[in-house]
């Protein structure tokens, strides 16, 4: 942005608006910290990932503020510093948050808890791997290695740091492998979750795991922000209740058909074949048409 040469006035405005982003983000980080402060902390895998998320996201935010300064950003533009920043935000932020949610709601989705031992191994491998892979990139970038170019001369002096990055990347891959093993083992050996393995405060924990197709027969009246903890107003469904068959619409295959049309369509430019394009378009259009008019009564 600042390397384009927009002039001092535009640069100042964009610098100010970029710095402003730090304000709501900082507020969010203190929200999460305050939630932890008032809570009863249990060191579950989900919490490991949640806390890891806050720490890594904050680091990404700090390097983000550096980008708001035009003279600093001029040095960082198109270097590995930017790659380091984006991965602390995107990987440390989004992916760690995703895994926190995965470990927290997996029992609700499948009825079985993911293994905590393998889960913590997954977390530590990923946490160490992520920092090994992306932290050196700050220095690699400031030393002058451009992003999107994989090769560099030995005189740049970034070979060792890049080796550390590579080791970190492999550690991340191993951690994902551990996660997949955990998923596989959980299918048969995972602890049965029951309605509420965590003592959660929100409504999803009042119903069986996995949830029945029709979760609440009567929409519950919510009178507090922590409805599960002030259960007096809530009628919970007992775990072994015989649920009356609800009148829910049946599942549909047509969205899947429509989705199948897209990769077929994408194959056409890859293979330079016209009939594949027509085939993909036909599958896509049929899927959308039948989906739109479902249930098809014609």
């Amino acid at each position: 942005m600042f390397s384009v040469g927009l002039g001092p006035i535009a640069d100042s405005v964009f610098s100010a608006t970029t710095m402003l982003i730090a304000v709501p983000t900082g507020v969010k980080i203190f929200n999460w910290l305050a939630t932890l402060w008032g809570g009863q902390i249990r060191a579950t895998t989900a919490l490991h990932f949640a806390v890891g998320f806050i720490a890594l996201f904050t680091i990404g935010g700090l390097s983000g503020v550096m980008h708001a300064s035009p003279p600093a950003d001029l040095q960082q533009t198109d270097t590995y510093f930017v790659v380091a920043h984006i991965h602390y935000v995107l990987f440390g932020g989004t992916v760690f948050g995703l895994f926190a949610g995965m470990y927290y709601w997996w029992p609700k989705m499948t009825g079985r808890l993911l293994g905590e031992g393998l889960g913590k191994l997954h977390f530590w491998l990923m946490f160490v791997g992520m920092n090994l892979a992306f932290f050196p990139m700050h220095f690699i970038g400031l030393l002058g290695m451009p992003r999107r170019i994989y090769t560099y001369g030995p005189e740049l002096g970034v070979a060792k740091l890049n080796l550390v990055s590579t080791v970190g990347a492999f550690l991340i891959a191993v951690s994902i492998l551990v996660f997949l093993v955990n998923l596989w083992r959980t299918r048969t050996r995972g602890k049965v979750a029951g309605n509420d393995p965590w003592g959660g405060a929100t409504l999803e924990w009042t119903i069986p795991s996995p949830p029945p197709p029709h979760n609440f027969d009567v929409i519950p009246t919510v009178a507090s922000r922590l409805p599960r903890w002030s259960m007096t107003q809530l009628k919970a469904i007992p775990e072994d209740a015989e649920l009356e068959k609800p009148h829910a619409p049946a599942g549909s295959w047509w969205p899947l058909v429509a989705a199948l049309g897209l990769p077929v369509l994408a194959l056409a430019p890859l293979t330079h074949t016209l009939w594949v394009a027509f085939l993909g378009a036909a599958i896509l259009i049929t899927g959308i048409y039948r989906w739109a008019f479902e249930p098809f009564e014609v």
Partner: protein
Amino acid sequence: MAHAAAAHHTSLGLDNRKMAFWAFIGSECLLFASLISTYLIYKGRSVVGPYPHEILNIPFTSVSTFDLLMSSLMMVLALAAVQRGDLKWAKVWLFLTAVLGMFFLAGQVYEFTSFVHEGLTLQRNLFGATFFVLTGTHGAHVTVGVIWLLTLWWRALRGKLGKGNALTVEICGLYWHFVDVVWIVIFTVVYLIQ
């Protein structure tokens, strides 16, 4: 549609499917607004011909505009017929709406073909690029509308378009009138104000 897909009651006083469709029309407004603005921004910036005043045929397009307006009238009559449970006239009006839509499309195919023969293509100049993208997107919308109308007509032929399905027809009508209104704007901006 079927009772299985019946709407939840909301405190809005508006069926949630209709609400969703109005939201969709809102997003369609943004799409066409961006295409019309693009046309206006590049208006008069073509460095090579054919230019709009040399090629646009206002009398011909006036006829197809009138045709599309009449199809909106047919749509109103079709909805009224479905709402009073008159299947016979519902069939007639739905079919006529679709046929008038197809006439409009035929007109557009003729117009595009003759423009290409006169040298105006998508790659020729800024007028060609913005004109074909704008009117082509509108034509694609009319095509979807015609398929939708024919589906409803086919359903009526099988005797399955009773009073209970009035909302389905009403939503189709919302779409059809929207596409018509967009054409009025395009006709004014592109053809009448050169």
